[in-house]
C-alpha cells in the first residue's frame, strides 16, 4: 500500500488500482496501450497480420503469468479460481470437447441463466470426463457461460495435484453443508449420484443406471428450493470400455476400482488415451422443487418419488438417444 515513486493509475481486472510503478506514458508495463511501447514493432491490430494474432495471444499469456507470479488473483471461499479455469484448464479440455469427442449439446435452455439449480447426471467411463464435459458445455455453450460447481468424491481431495485442481476448478466435497451453501449463494451445482458405482461399472452394463445413492441430492434441492435439471450424457460409456476390475490391486492402492480395458494396462500410458466416441449431452426439462417447500424433506415418499423421477428421466433420455445414434464413433 505504501511505496516510493509514482504508481500506475490503470484499473486491474478486479477493478482495483494497479500498484505497479509507472513507465513511459504514465502507465506501467502491464497496462500500457498496445502499440505505444517505445521500440515496438507494427500495430498488433493490423488486419491480416499473421504475427498479430500470435502476439495478442502471447500478450495475454504473459499477463496471466505475471498475475500468477505476483499472486494477483482472487478465489472464492471454496477455492474457485476463474482466472486459472479460463486461461489454463478450459483450454486444455476444449480440444477433447470439440475435436476428440465432438460433443453435441441439447436442451441448454433448461439450465437457468442465473440463480441456483442442481444439475444431476449419469456417471460412467472410469475417469470422470463426463462431469468435466458437462461443465465445459455449460461454460462455453450456455448463453450465460455458467460455472458448474460439482460435488466430488472425497478421494479427489486426498490425492496430491488432483486436490487443488478440483477446488480451483470450482468443485467441492460431496457433503450436504457445501452443497447447500453453494445453492444458497445462487450457484449451479452438479451432482453425480451414481458415484463410483457408475464410474467403475463394467462395459457390459453400459447405459444401465446404477442406484442413485440415498437421494441426498433431492433433500438438498428441497431444502433450498432449487430446481433439478437432469442431464443425460451419451458417449462417456465407450471412452474406456472396462472389461475387468482388479479389486485386490485397487484395494492395495486405496482406489475404488482398478480398470482393465482392451488397451490398459496392456499398452501402458498409451492405453490411457480415451477412445474417440461421439458424445451427446442432453439437458432435460427442469423439475421444480420450490412449490413442495422445505418441510417436504420430512416425507420419505416425496424423496423416493423425486429421486426416481430424476433417474427415470435420465434413463429414458439415454435410451431414446441410444436408439437414434448411428454408431459409437460417428
Amino acid at each position, binding site marked *: *500500500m*505504501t*511505496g516510493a515513486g509514482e504508481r500506475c493509475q490503470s484499473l486491474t481486472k478486479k477493478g482495483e488500482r494497479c*500498484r*505497479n*510503478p509507472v*513507465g513511459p506514458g504514465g502507465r*506501467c*508495463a*502491464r497496462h500500457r496501450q498496445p502499440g505505444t*511501447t517505445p*521500440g*515496438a*514493432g*507494427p500495430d*498488433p491490430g*493490423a488486419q491480416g*497480420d*499473421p*504475427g*498479430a494474432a*500470435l*502476439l495478442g495471444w*502471447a*500478450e495475454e499469456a*504473459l*499477463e496471466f*503469468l*505475471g498475475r*500468477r*507470479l*505476483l*499472486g494477483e*488473483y*482472487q*478465489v*472464492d*471461499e*471454496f*477455492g474457485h*479460481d476463474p482466472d486459472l479455469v479460463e486461461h489454463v484448464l478450459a483450454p486444455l479440455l476444449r480440444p477433447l470437447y470439440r475435436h476428440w469427442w465432438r460433443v453435441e449439446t441439447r436442451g441448454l435452455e433448461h439450465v437457468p441463466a442465473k440463480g441456483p439449480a442442481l444439475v444431476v447426471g449419469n456417471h460412467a467411463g472410469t475417469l470422470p470426463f463426463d462431469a468435466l464435459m458437462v461443465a465445459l458445455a455449460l461454460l462455453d455453450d450456455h448463453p450465460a457461460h455458467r460455472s458448474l460447481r460439482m460435488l466430488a468424491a*472425497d478421494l479427489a*481431495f*486426498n*490425492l*496430491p*495435484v*488432483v*486436490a*487443488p485442481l478440483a*477446488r*480451483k476448478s470450482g468443485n*467441492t*466435497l460431496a*457433503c450436504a*453443508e*457445501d452443497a447447500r*451453501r453453494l445453492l444458497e449463494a445462487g450457484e449451479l451445482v452438479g451432482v453425480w449420484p451414481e458415484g463410483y458405482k457408475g464410474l467403475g461399472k463394467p462395459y457390459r452394463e453400459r447405459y444401465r443406471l446404477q442406484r442413485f445413492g440415498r437421494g441426498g441430492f433431492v433433500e438438498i434441492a428441497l431444502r433450498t428450493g432449487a430446481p433439478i435439471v437432469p442431464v443425460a450424457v451419451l458417449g462417456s460409456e465407450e471412452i474406456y470400455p472396462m472389461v475387468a476390475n482388479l479389486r485386490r490391486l485397487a484395494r492395495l492402492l486405496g482406489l475404488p476400482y482398478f480398470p482393465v480395458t482392451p488397451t490398459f494396462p496392456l499398452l501402458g500410458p498409451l492405453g490411457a488415451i480415451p477412445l474417440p466416441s461421439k458424445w451427446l449431452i442432453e439437458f432435460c426439462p427442469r423439475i421444480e422443487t420450490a412449490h413442495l417447500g422445505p418441510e417436504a424433506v420430512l416425507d420419505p415418499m416425496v424423496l423416493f418419488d423425486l429421486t426416481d423421477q430424476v433417474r427415470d428421466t435420465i434413463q429414458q433420455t439415454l435410451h431414446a438417444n441410444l436408439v437414434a445414434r448411428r454408431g459409437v464413433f460417428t
Partner: protein
Amino acid sequence: MGRRILVTGAARSTGRRLVAALATDPEVDAVVAVDDLGPDEPFPPGVEQLRVDLRSPALVRTVQSTGIDTCVHLGVAAEPRAAGGRATMKERNVLGTMQLLAAAYHAPDLRRLVLKSTTAVYGAAAGDPAVWTEAMGHETPSHGFGKDAIEVEDYVRSFDRRRPDVAVTVLRLANQVGPTVDNPLTRYFELPVCPTVFGFDPRLQFLHEDDTAEVLLRAAIGPAARGTFNVAGDGVVLLSQAIRIAGKPPLPIPEPLVNRVAELVGRTVDFSPEQVRFLQYGRVADTAAARKQLGFSPAWTSLDAFEDFATTRLRRLVTEEWVARLEQEALAGLRRAAGWLSRGDAPMGGDGSR
C-alpha cells in the same frame, strides 16, 4: 459506575493493545492486567498490573473481591516453545483456565466473560466441509494448540451453563497477521523458502491485528453478545498465492517426507504436526454470525491483511517491478519477432523497412 475489566495474557502483544485501548476508554473505571511475564513496554498509567500465574491465589482474591464485572481471557498460548515445552503449555492453558473459571464462578459482580479461542478447533483434514460454521460438529484435533483450545472452550461452555447471569462470548480467531504479529505462521512466511506439501494448495484465512484488537474491544465493552463466533477477514487466500505475494520461492515436499522435514525445520520455527496438516488442507470459517449477532465486520480482507503483512515485514525476492520488466522485455522481443514475420524478408533491425 464504570466497568472493571480483568485481562489475562495481558503482556503479549494482543493483550497489551487491548489493555491500552481499555485504559483510555471513558466508560472503563479499572483495568487489571494479568500475566506472569512483564510487558515489553510498560502498561499505560492507571492499569493495575498483576504479575502472577493464572493458578495463583492472588488472582482468585482479585477476581472475587475487587468488583470485576468483565473477564477477557487471552491467556491460552499457542506455542510450546515460548511456553517452555508442550507439557507446561498444556498445564497453563487448560489448568490455568480451570482455575480462572473456578475463581470467576464465585465472583459476585461478574457479568461478562470473553474467551479468545481459535479456528484451529476445527482441525484440518481432506474430508472437511469447505466452510465451517460455529455449530458444525467437528472431529477434535488430537493434540497441540487445537486440542487445548477445545478443552478450554469446553470448560468455558460448562461455566456458561452454571452461571447463566454471565454473558459468555467465545471468539474463534483465524490466523493473525500484521506488522507486529509474531506466530508460527508469520515465521513460516519469513523463512527464505516456504516448504509446502507437494500437490496441495490449501485455502487460508487471515485476520489483521487491527481487527483482532477491534473485535476483542467490542466483545469486552460493546453490547453483550452471547455465543461462539468465528472471526476472520473476508475471502480466502490460497497458500500458493500467499507465497507469491510474500515473494518467496515455494519448496514442494512429497507427502511421505513431510514429517521428516517438519522435524528438521521445527528446530527453528515451531513446526507442529498440526501446523503441517493446516498447510496441507487449510481451513475456512464462516463469519456471518459475527457480522449479524456481534455486529463485527473486519476492516481488512484476508488478502489485504496478508498483503499488509507482506509489505511491512517481508523482503520480496520476486517483486512487481521485476515481473513488469520481464513482461515488458518479453513482449518487446515478441513484437520484434512478429514484425519480421509479417514482413517476411524484412532486414534485421526491424523498423527500418517501414
